[in-house]
């Protein structure tokens, strides 16, 4: 009896993480939807708070790269099909992949707090999208948006980082 309980442990852990991942992906998708419904009232295009990133950062800290990357991909593909269309999805994918890789690397250095990680994520998300736009449109004039996107990514990244820090502390342990 006791040996059986021991062997089922790793499966328990995986099952819990898979279930939590699905929940996180759904939550991130809802956050994406909220941003479609309630855009931030600024006159510059392409500026978002990046609420979904809140979920992704917590996933990086709690579940590691593979789970958080998968959650992000599921969210982007689902949000792309539901709200923004295939073209929007390409931009989100570029931004999402670049930002999650940078965020994970910064997290691994252990030198940054969640706010620093989120800050870099916000900036890289915008950067990835801008690079995609330059490649797709074959036009470097769009680079004039760079400073605006840089600062907006910085500010939204800091806000999301503070939120993530507050929320992560209050979440119960995912696995025992």
């Amino acid at each position, binding site marked *: 009896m006791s040996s059986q309980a021991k062997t089922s442990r790793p499966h328990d852990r995986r099952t819990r993480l898979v279930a939590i991942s699905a929940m996180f992906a759904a939550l991130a998708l809802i956050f994406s939807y909220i941003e479609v419904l309630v855009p931030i009232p600024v006159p510059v295009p392409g500026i978002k708070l990046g609420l979904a990133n809140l979920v992704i950062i917590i996933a990086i800290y709690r579940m590691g790269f593979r789970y958080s990357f998968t959650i992000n991909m599921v969210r982007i593909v689902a949000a792309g099909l539901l709200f923004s269309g295939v073209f929007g999805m390409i931009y989100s994918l570029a931004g999402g992949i670049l930002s999650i890789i940078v965020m994970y690397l910064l997290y691994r250095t252990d030198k940054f707090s969640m*706010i620093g990680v989120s800050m870099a994520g916000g900036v890289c998300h915008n950067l990835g999208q801008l690079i995609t736009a330059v490649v797709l449109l074959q036009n470097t004039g769009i680079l004039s*948006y760079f400073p605006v996107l840089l600062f907006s990514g910085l500010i939204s990244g800091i806000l999301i980082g503070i939120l993530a820090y507050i929320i992560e502390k209050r979440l119960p342990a995912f696995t025992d």
Partner: protein
Amino acid sequence: MIKKADVILFILIVVIGLVISFGPLAKQAGGTDVVVTLNGDTYGIYALSEDQTITVESEGHVNVIVIEDGTVRMDSASCKNQVCVDHGAISLKGDSIVCLPNRVVVEIKGEGGEADVISG
């Protein structure tokens, strides 16, 4: 909660942003030409001083660009998000309006030798 590396990163990003804003990408008065790009190819170059309406059509997408009193705006676009229309009017050199769904870019450029080249 905030670490030293966070502050360094923050300062670094701000400095990079400021350098770029006031360096190569600085917007200034003195633009003379309106360059319209479609799918990465130059669609046409128009004088900023001349009031006119330009209709860009391709693959069922329509963008109407209006040049008026030295400013350029996207008057209407057949795209879903209307970001380019909401962008408003631009008048400075180096400024641009981008319609991502229709892949149309409107830029203001300064005096250049290409002013007399009209293509498309």
